[in-house]
């Protein structure tokens, strides 16, 4: 099929296999002689390992521990602080100490019970608040913006200074397919297959752990049932486990988590605490603002420093705030490590800032949306890092259109009348305004990622896409094939895009940071254009395209100055809710969303990103609740964690604004993370509108709502 406009939707390339249920995921794979692995995990949050007594092993069963690691005993990510097998110190409950490998899982579970590990327990840090109090284990810190001295001077002359503290909780990815990895021993190489987003992150971790050459390891992506960032960093550890085991036992070794294990030991979104200090004049105008962000990193560094960067870079939202200062920390706690999650630090920042702006608006006696609109950045204005918003910004149009469609003012009046008459149910409407910087921060694409893509044309004129990016359900098999097909003028079905295998594909970078369509898609567009120019029928041809950095204001990672991102996607969400003031239950009533993602490569696929991202973002604001008690995750099932079902989400009315970006294919910018970011702040704003009570945390669970309402009632009586 050749579509006139690339945005026109087509059937996803993997549609039939998925709908028929015939696509084999990693847990469906069975190999001859395949063994299973199970991990012995730390039962304590922090302590020194005194002795490890392995169980007596039956024939055909093996122990794989730190002593079997040919390379360094750490999972290569940023900082070597995450052991593959924690044989000296354990830093969180669930940290792997060794692995048992054998044919029967039932026997393996039995053997796990027989193993004995002795610890010298040390005093653990269980919560972010404890870590903030101590400030002893800082994993990363950044600071930038206006000098604090200037801000203090401004504060002295201000009419009032508003200080607020905001908290965000854990969020769990709940990908449909739990984590799974298979290590395969071959004479000349170790192969790892599994559910993953970043093939070369895993390959690099394996080279480090196995201390081997580049051609001695090979990573192949299996069909992946959702990632959301949860399969960005975490799979590297499992890959090390199965690769080391396969090398020792010379057989395939499979490591699969069931849901409860996955919920308890895999990475989550960083819980955060954000402090705001904002100086206002007599009319409620902002004179200055300083923000302090604290992220709970969990037990090892992982990607947390980068998450902190994005949290800080987004901390002023879509606003031009005069005299802005930002500082942030990642602090270590003895809890499950936190890692990548769709939005990567930005959802925390937007939830906090939108909440704060809403509260200031009320203090200033203004409608939150009207107040926030005054501060919207415009094209050509500086970013908080002294970069520039170079491209057109349509936020004003997007807001205005939505207000008209909704008849916003009238609706607010209707809700006010309804709330006066209804003792139990209260209606509210809330808005969030947000953006997302597309691709890696600053010069990351140029200096760290250095993406390369390849198109291969066979003698039969078959075109193959050779990149290392994962289709994890977001649809790049289809969208990227469409881009190549459009350039070549052939139907997209004719482009073949096999599951990537590092032996076969160059490193086009990880599948993260809303970069795949924009960055990798652009490289493929250019490669396809060149292939078309050079096309010789019946001849094998190969086109390689390398990343070229766009001219921007140079990014300085030390001072946090320059253009942090090449482009921004934008969004407006308006959410209507009905709150049961007797139970605190919140029912979403209507959801409206407008986005500027440059240009949609496939409207239905983008709609999938909008519906899924918004469900995840809205639920982050009021439903999904994960807690840790003495270092132990309390919710061990999906039911207890409570992600939304189809019964909880209503139709999402969404609209796209074309605003083509020259640096993206056909003008496309990033979309994957953007759609999640506005959900929580919009729902918070709507709940506050319904109840006329401010909240300072997400998720705003029924428990929090009832507590706040009871408190207000108590105060009213006093």
């Amino acid at each position: 099929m050749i579509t006139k406009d690339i945005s026109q939707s087509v059937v996803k390339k993997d549609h039939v296999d998925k709908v028929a249920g015939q696509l084999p995921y990693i847990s469906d794979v069975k190999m001859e002689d395949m063994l299973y692995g199970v991990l012995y995990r730390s039962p304590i949050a922090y302590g020194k390992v005194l002795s490890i007594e392995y169980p007596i092993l039956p024939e055909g069963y093996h122990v794989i521990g730190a002593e079997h690691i040919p390379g360094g005993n750490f999972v290569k990510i940023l900082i070597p602080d995450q052991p593959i097998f924690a044989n000296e110190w354990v830093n969180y409950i669930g940290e792997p100490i060794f692995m048992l490998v054998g044919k029967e899982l039932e026997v393996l579970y039995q053997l796990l019970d027989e193993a004995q590990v002795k610890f010298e327990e040390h005093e653990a840090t269980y919560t972010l608040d404890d870590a903030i109090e101590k400030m002893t284990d800082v994993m990363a810190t950044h600071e930038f913006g206006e000098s604090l001295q200037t801000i203090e001077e401004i504060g002295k002359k201000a009419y009032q200074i508003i200080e607020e503290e905001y908290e965000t909780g854990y969020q769990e990815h709940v990908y449909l397919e739990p984590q799974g990895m298979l290590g395969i021993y071959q004479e000349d190489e170790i192969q790892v297959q599994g559910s993953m987003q970043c093939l070369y992150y895993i390959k690099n971790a394996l080279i480090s752990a196995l201390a081997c050459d580049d051609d001695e390891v090979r990573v192949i992506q299996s069909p992946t049932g959702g990632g959301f960032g949860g399969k960005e960093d975490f799979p590297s550890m499992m890959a090390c486990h199965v690769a080391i085991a396969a090398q020792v036992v010379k057989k395939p070794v499979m490591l699969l988590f069931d849901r409860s294990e996955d919920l308890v030991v895999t990475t989550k979104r960083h819980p955060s605490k954000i402090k705001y200090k904002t100086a206002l004049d007599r009319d409620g105008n902002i004179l200055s603002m300083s923000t302090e962000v604290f992220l709970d990193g969990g037990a090892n560094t992982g990607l947390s420093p980068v998450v902190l960067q994005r949290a800080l870079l987004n901390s002023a939202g879509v606003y031009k705030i005069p005299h802005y200062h930002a500082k942030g920390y990642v602090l270590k706690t003895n809890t499950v490590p936190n890692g990548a999650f769709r939005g990567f630090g930005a959802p925390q920042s937007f939830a906090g800032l939108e909440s704060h702006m809403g509260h200031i608006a009320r203090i200033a006696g203004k409608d939150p949306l009207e107040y926030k609109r005054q501060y919207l950045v415009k094209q050509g204005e500086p970013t908080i890092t002294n970069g520039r918003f170079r491209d057109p910004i349509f936020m004003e149009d997007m807001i205005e259109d939505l207000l008209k469609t909704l008849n916003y003012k009238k609706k607010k009046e209707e809700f006010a009348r309804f709330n006066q008459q209804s003792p139990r149910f209260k209606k509210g409407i809330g808005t969030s305004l947000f953006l997302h910087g597309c691709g890696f921060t600053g010069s990351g694409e140029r200096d760290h990622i250095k993406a390369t893509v390849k198109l291969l044309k066979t003698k039969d004129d078959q075109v193959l896409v050779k990149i290392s990016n994962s289709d994890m359900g977001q649809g790049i098999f289809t969208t990227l094939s469409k881009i190549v097909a459009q350039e070549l003028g052939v139907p997209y079905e004719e482009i073949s895009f096999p599951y990537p295998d590092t032996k076969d594909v160059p490193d086009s970078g990880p599948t993260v940071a809303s970069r795949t369509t924009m960055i990798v898609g652009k490289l493929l567009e250019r490669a396809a254009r060149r292939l078309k120019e050079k096309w010789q029928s019946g001849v094998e041809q190969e086109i390689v395209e390398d990343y070229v950095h766009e001219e921007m204001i140079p990014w300085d990672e030390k001072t946090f100055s320059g253009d942090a991102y090449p482009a921004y996607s934008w969004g407006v969400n308006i959410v209507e809710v009905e709150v049961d003031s007797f139970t605190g239950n919140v029912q979403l009533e209507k959801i409206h969303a407008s986005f500027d993602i440059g240009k949609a490569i496939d409207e239905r696929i983008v709609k999938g990103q909008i519906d899924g991202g918004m469900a995840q973002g809205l639920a982050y604001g009021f439903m999904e609740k994960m807690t840790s008690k003495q270092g132990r995750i309390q919710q061990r099932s999906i039911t207890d964690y409570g992600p939304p079902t189809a019964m909880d989400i209503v139709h999402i009315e969404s609209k796209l604004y074309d605003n083509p970006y020259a640096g993206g294919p056909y003008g496309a910018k990033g979309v994957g993370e953007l759609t999640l970011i506005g959900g929580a702040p919009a729902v918070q704003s709507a709940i506050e509108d319904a109840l006329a009570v401010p909240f300072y945390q997400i998720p705003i669970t029924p428990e929090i709502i009832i507590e706040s309402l009871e408190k207000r009632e108590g105060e009213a009586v006093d």
Partner: protein
Amino acid sequence: MVTKTVASYHFDTLAETISKLNEEDCTIIAGGTDVMVLHKSRRGVAPKIAKPVVFIDHLRELKQTYLEDGDLHIGACCTYGEMLEHSLIPNIFKKAIREVAAPAIRNRGTLGGNICNASPAGDMLPLLYIFNAKLVLRSVNEDRIVEIHDFIQGPRRIARQQNELLVEIILPEVVNEARLIFEKIANRRADAISKVSFAGLLQVQAGKVADARFAFGAVGPTMVRSQETEKKLLSQVYPLKVEVLDEVVADFASIINPIDDQRSTAAYRKTVALKLLRYFLTSKELF
């Protein structure tokens, strides 16, 4: 695979099933939606059920629903899905059923199973309590009829003898004009376990309360019901006087003692339970 054979029985008739129960201590599976979860093993290992298993979900004798002398008899193996379709099942039960899990579970789970699982959060239990449900337990010797509140003794503890089978649930006739309510409070609208649930019945005749019954779920080891407090409302003028209302709420405040767990807090459960009670007793919206 290391496998151990689990003895299982699947008889054609109820009589054979009951006679087997007389010989052997068995685990009974109707829909299996609780038993299978309770005995779940870690990934890749079959559920471990120590006792022999008796399947009963296919027995026609346990799927009958009929009226007799004004009382409604529901077969213990009627699934939620079947009850939803049946014209004799009271609407308030259907409302509760629509909030049970999701359609797949509703096609398997049975009314008898919900009772015998005796979960403090059992979705059908608050209504069964205020309907004064009676349970028919059959053994080779006799049919024994037990009140539901005597049958359920604690979380997963019931007064079933090894040789007995719950065959029927009897709902004694309820006067038509009774006002009924059922509210399930959970973290989401499907596939959720109650944090609090509440069932209420109120009958007003000639401006006075003729009958009042309340049951609260998920706020204690079993459903919380107090016939003593209910009696205080009889013959009271309706709308209720503030003192009467406050006394009833205060009574329940002293007997509802929920716990904190991974799903909610004790304070929330108690506050919400009392709010729902007060709302039911005062709201004009409901009637």
